[in-house]
């Protein structure tokens, strides 16, 4: 036999017995996956012609001038949402889609005794087309023991500093407002979250299975809303505040990560004025590998954890095996990559 024949004869494992029941259970639970379509074949020459035609149209439109459409002041929701420092911006004011059911079982067997305080500072970089790299943001996550209403809690906060060098070359330092949450140490459920920004005050209180959201915006056109939404899942199940990296960081400390581990938690985003469109959906976590990761703060043996939200968003997290520290994150798109890596930690890395 030639090695090419060997290649074809190479055995591959059989699918696990439970895969069919997992598929049928997902269908029964309402999970839907949009499979990719066959791409029509387009020759390079036709593609170039299409690109050239599109460029010509854009050029023509951009030189026509004309009046810009005025901002729709009636649409306060988008306006307000855009003022909030969520990251990445897909939490902002998008038309909510039907919630995707969790892919995995709810996370359980939290090792809450492993949770610990400290301060972790990260460098955030954006890489465009694998060439242009911008590392203009730093954020710090702080976790400490605190008390709220006579109850022991974790006080978790994050602040971020960005250097902006657009539209001109002048560098402006922008500091986003402090973002703080109190988290129940027994369940890892946030119970209170607050962002006090310049000209706005955003608060979320969680009681039982309900999030109560309050937003007040000052300035020339003051607006506000008071709204509630239900949080799915068990009342003692942990959840995270969408895109607030700090509570994912605390959760990672207590998850029983190991080979093959997987679990889902709900994330609670902006409820907005219409609770039926609240941005509450599961995030699905799965250990997909392990390895030694080198970051400015040191070298860490890590679990590589895939975080998925719906069909679109995939974030990769690296959590240190010894203490569950968030060491690195990566969001990958075809022509764009956003990374954050641990710069320093207090207490320092073991």
């Amino acid at each position, binding site marked *: 036999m030639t*090695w090419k024949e060997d290649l074809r004869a190479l055995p591959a*494992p059989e699918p696990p017995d439970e*895969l069919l029941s997992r598929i049928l259970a997902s269908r029964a639970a309402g999970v*839907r*996956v949009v*499979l990719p379509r*066959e791409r029509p074949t387009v020759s390079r020459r036709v593609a170039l012609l299409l690109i050239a035609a599109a460029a010509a149209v854009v050029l023509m439109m951009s030189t026509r001038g004309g009046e810009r459409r005025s901002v729709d002041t009636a649409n306060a929701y988008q306006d307000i949402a855009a003022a909030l420092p969520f990251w990445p911006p897909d939490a902002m004011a998008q038309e909510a889609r039907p919630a995707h059911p969790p892919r995995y079982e709810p996370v359980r067997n939290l090792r809450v005794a492993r949770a610990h305080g400290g301060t972790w500072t990260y460098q955030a970089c954006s890489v465009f087309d694998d060439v242009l790299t911008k590392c203009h943001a730093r954020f710090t996550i702080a976790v400490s023991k605190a008390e709220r209403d006579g109850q022991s809690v974790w006080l978790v906060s994050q602040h971020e500093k960005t250097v902006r060098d657009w539209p001109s070359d002048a560098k402006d330092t922008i500091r986003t407002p402090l973002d703080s949450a109190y988290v129940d140490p027994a369940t890892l459920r946030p119970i209170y979250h607050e962002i006090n920004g310049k000209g706005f005050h955003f608060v979320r209180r969680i009681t039982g299975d309900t999030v109560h959201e309050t937003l007040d915006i000052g300035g020339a056109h003051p607006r506000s809303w008071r709204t509630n939404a239900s949080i799915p899942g068990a009342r003692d199940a942990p959840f995270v505040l969408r895109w607030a990296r700090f509570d994912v960081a605390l959760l990672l400390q207590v998850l029983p990560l190991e080979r093959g581990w997987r679990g889902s938690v709900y994330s609670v985003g902006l409820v907005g004025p219409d609770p039926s469109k609240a941005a509450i959906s599961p995030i699905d976590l799965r250990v*997909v590998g392990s390895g030694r990761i080198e970051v400015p703060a040191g070298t860490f043996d890590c679990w590589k954890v895939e975080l998925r939200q719906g069909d679109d968003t*995939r974030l990769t997290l690296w959590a240190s095996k010894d203490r569950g520290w968030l060491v690195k994150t990566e969001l990958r798109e075809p022509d764009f990559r956003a990374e954050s890596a641990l710069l320093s930690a207090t207490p320092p890395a073991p």
Partner: protein
Amino acid sequence: MQAAASGGAGTSIDQIDQIDQIDHIAGARAGEPKALASLYRAYGAALYRLAYRLTGTPQDAEDVVHDVFVGLPEALGRYEERGSLVGWLKRVTARVALMRLRTRTRRGEVTLDATLPTVDRPAEVESEALRSAIDALPDRLRSVLVLKEVEGYSHAEVGQLLGISEGASRVRLNRAMKRLRKMLEDGR
């Protein structure tokens, strides 16, 4: 289906299979679990092997096949029943596996599969060496090698699946072969 299966004289096994398949496709399109399960039993293992060879890990292969079958009832609406079903399913599976590969980085870290005990792997040493050499190839080379040499796609089809030109597919296959040969020779 029952009438056809109990069939009259002259109904060949192939025709029965064909009729069964048409029934299963119609049932799966309507979201019937039984029909979906029948399609899985017929093609699931082959699709899993393809996904495994492309992604290199059983966990990813499992998720790929899961996603393919969960999305199948809706996707079958686009299947025009002109080519073979298995060919169409393989193309869909390959696309899902390739999408998964694109979101995965392999810089520095070891995939989980590489740390699994070797009892999960083929027993023969030569197969193991070949398997390891394929796993060590970069994703963009391994995908061409698997699609062309294992799955038997033409370069034009590989190019279409990967979004590259036919020439690029040939170049990548050539590079994959060279690297594979070198790794196997170095390993002896």
